[in-house]
């Protein structure tokens, strides 16, 4: 029963069964995971026991990865634009909530130290649940989504001073603090031992190192690895990067999530962004799922059974207090009503930081263990209720607001482009430049690092990646784009990509470069909308130039080329139905020759008619 494989089997089975059902029922994946956790947990099937807390800590790394991915989506200038909401809204939310809970605790007879500790800890919300749910509902880019994100980001930063303050609230027993700090940081070396100014310098150094490495060095490593064309090594390096940053941050006592978020922001401009996204995404998804399951499994129903009314009262009280404060803040910050409700309902829980902070607090003798256990249960229940509350808001409250109130906010992060170009070689560049010159936003994917760097120097946004991978297409925005322009030279690869795009994104129109006639028919069979034979256009123009040098007038040569083009394209389509027969190749060759002959002789016959019969006949006019 205790084997690792069996554990993994149980967790995966629970997820595979309950998440699709929850999704089907419109409850969202988070609720599915939480429910799965409760089912396999110690109080229902007892498949998993006390070790789920260890798994919880491990799975928290999913939150770190999620923040890295969010950072990748957020360019530095966008982050800078959010500084107001982060400091103002986030700061006020933490401060006001702490004070209110402190007062309530004080009224109920706790010392002010204990009340303050509880207030600080409960003020924080759950980054994992809120962002995952908002993302899933596609609400992250609304005003409420951005505000929620800002508050969560501030809370992430606030964890650091809270960790520093908590030991000061303890009953003074020497030696304990240092011991527990090590537990929190999981690292052998602790900078708490250093004097304050050295700590500060160390923190600044680490952050500067992350920025410098991310900005200037990492791309060369990425390029070096990308050129080996070993996908798994690229994935390994991406994981290495995230874990390395997390470790570095823990070493200097900062939140790992914050550090990787920063790294993500630094890399948001990188050409390897989409590839990184699609590499980290599955890990993040699974770890977050594991995290939610662990939260579900850790809910202590025995404790709940002992004092059900107290627990229910505390959960309700916590949610109502947070809800009211958030709603007032949203009102002060002039959110529209529907956005304000979304904002308030999203953040009205306490978060995963509470698990860590409460155990930290008991280790530091800030509060007794039974109190902390009760509060941890309250936090877990408030987290589990969040998806339910959001569904309540979505189904029952939101419909009451007029549609006018719900118009999409204009000031949101929107950098998805209408056009994706796969392949930015000689062909793709011309297409890209034409669109660029006409102010059409393009997301360009290419798999040659040297090519990408060269083109980037001219100011094009080109990303590294293999366009046949569905995840990469997703992160490049294929779900929202209008056109997919396929210009890579490898015709088998192009065919494979076209098939994938047709299957996965049926609404995306494909414009493809074809190698020859056979390739054109293959693309037609898949249903590609626009096909251009790669050499046809330029050969035609060269032919027209030859006619000109042979004495044709410019306009005459131009029309001759256009006539030929029209004729050739019509016969190309007409011959399509004969393509792919048993004797496909023979037939094709014969037809091709016949076609060419007909084309040339009919040009001869048509000459007078197509070349402007009426232009030179006096006709009595």
């Amino acid at each position: 029963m205790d084997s690792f494989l069996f554990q993994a089997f149980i967790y995966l089975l629970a997820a595979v069964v309950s998440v699709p059902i929850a999704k089907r029922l419109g409850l969202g994946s988070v609720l599915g995971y939480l429910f799965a956790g409760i089912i396999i947990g110690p109080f229902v099937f007892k498949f998993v026991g006390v070790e789920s807390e260890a798994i919880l800590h491990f799975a928290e790394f999913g939150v770190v990865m999620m923040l890295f991915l969010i950072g990748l989506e957020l360019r530095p200038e966008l982050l800078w634009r959010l500084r107001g909401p982060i400091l103002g809204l986030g700061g006020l939310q933490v401060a006001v909530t702490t004070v209110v809970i402190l007062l309530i605790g004080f009224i109920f007879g706790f010392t002010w130290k204990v009340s303050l500790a509880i207030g600080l800890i409960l003020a924080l919300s759950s980054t994992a649940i809120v962002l995952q749910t908002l993302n899933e509902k596609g609400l992250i880019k609304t005003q409420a989504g951005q505000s929620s994100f800002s508050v969560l980001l501030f809370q992430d930063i606030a964890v650091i001073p809270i960790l520093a303050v908590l030991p000061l609230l303890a009953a003074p027993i020497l030696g304990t603090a240092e011991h527990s700090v090590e537990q929190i940081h999981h690292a052998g070396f602790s900078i708490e031992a250093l004097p304050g100014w050295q700590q500060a310098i160390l923190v600044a150094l680490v952050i500067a190192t992350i920025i410098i490495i991310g900005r200037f060095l990492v791309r060369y490593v990425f390029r070096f690895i990308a050129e080996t064309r070993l996908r798994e090594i690229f994935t390994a390096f991406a994981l290495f990067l995230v874990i390395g940053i997390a470790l570095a941050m823990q070493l200097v006592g900062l939140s790992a999530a914050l550090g990787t978020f920063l790294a993500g922001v630094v890399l948001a401009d990188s050409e390897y962004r989409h590839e990184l996204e699609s590499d980290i995404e599955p890990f993040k998804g699974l770890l977050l799922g594991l995290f939610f399951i662990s939260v579900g499994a850790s809910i202590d129903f025995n404790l709940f059974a002992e004092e059900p009314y107290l627990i229910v009262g505390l959960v309700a009280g916590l949610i109502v207090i947070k809800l009211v404060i958030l709603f007032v803040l949203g009102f002060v910050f002039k959110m529209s009503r529907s956005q304000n409700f979304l904002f308030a309902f999203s953040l009205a829980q306490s978060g995963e930081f509470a698990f860590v902070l409460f155990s930290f607090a008991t280790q530091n003798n800030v509060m007794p263990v039974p109190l902390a256990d009760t509060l941890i249960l309250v936090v877990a229940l408030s987290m589990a209720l969040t998806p339910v509350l959001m569904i309540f808001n979505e189904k029952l409250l939101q419909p009451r607001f007029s549609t006018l109130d719900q118009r999409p906010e204009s000031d949101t992060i929107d950098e998805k482009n209408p056009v994706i170009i796969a392949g930015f070689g000689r062909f793709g560049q011309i297409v890209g430049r034409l669109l660029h010159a006409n102010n059409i936003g393009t997301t360009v994917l290419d798999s040659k690092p040297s090519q990408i760097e060269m083109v980037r120097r001219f100011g094009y946004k080109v990303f590294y990646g293999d366009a046949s991978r569905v995840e990469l297409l997703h992160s490049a925005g294929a779900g929202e784009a209008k056109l997919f322009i396929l210009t890579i030279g490898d015709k088998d690869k192009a065919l494979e990509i076209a098939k994938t795009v047709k299957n996965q994104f049926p609404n995306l129109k494909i414009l493809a470069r074809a190698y020859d006639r056979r390739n054109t028919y293959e693309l037609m069979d898949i249903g590609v909308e626009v096909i251009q034979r790669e050499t046809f256009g330029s050969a035609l123009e060269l032919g027209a130039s030859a006619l000109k040098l042979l004495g044709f007038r410019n306009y005459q040569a131009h029309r001759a080329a256009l006539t030929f083009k029209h004729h050739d394209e019509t016969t190309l389509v007409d011959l399509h139905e004969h393509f792919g027969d048993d004797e496909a190749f023979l037939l094709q060759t014969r037809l091709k020759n016949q076609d060419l002959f007909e084309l040339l002789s009919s040009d001869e016959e048509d000459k007078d008619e197509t070349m402007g019969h009426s232009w030179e006949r006096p006709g009595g006019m």
Partner: protein
Amino acid sequence: MSRNYKNKILVIFAHPALEKSRINVELCRAIKNLDGITFRDLYEIYPDFLIDVKEEQRLLLDHDIIVLQHPFYWYSCPAIIKEWIDLVLQYGFAYGHEGTALAGKHMMSAISVGASEDAYTENGVHYYHVREFLRPFERTAALCNMNYIPPFVVHHTSDLVTVEDISVFSDLYKKVLISLRDKDIDIKAMNEFKYINDYMLDQYESWSV
């Protein structure tokens, strides 16, 4: 173009199939290399109809007389001349508020017409006179504050068989352009004639070259 001419002439020419033309090819040959004349073959310069408006406007500013030379198609001009008028004679440049760039310049049509002048009378096939059909051009000139010089017209082109037949007209065309280039333009005297051909022939007696 070392000499300073009285009037610099810009010939805007269009024939979509000049390689098959008999009349216009000779008319062009007669005038296109004359000093003081800028000859623009629109179909040759813009086979894709992508007219360079800035360049065309610059040329207009640089000349005093604009000649639109073309065969007479369906009582009008070939498509590219219309395109040229549509794009180059811009609002604000050629007409409209502050559109005075062409004011005081002269404009003339030079056309080849299949039928005889008789066919262009009330009793003929075409009922109206050629001048009636050229009204849009006349009004275009007027709207741009340009003087409209009576057109140079080659009638009954199917009757012009030999090189000598045609050269009568190409010589006359050449004389018209040289005269316009070198002499003061007496619009009043010209307007007494339907075609500038007749004005020239009238002047011939007193004008010896």
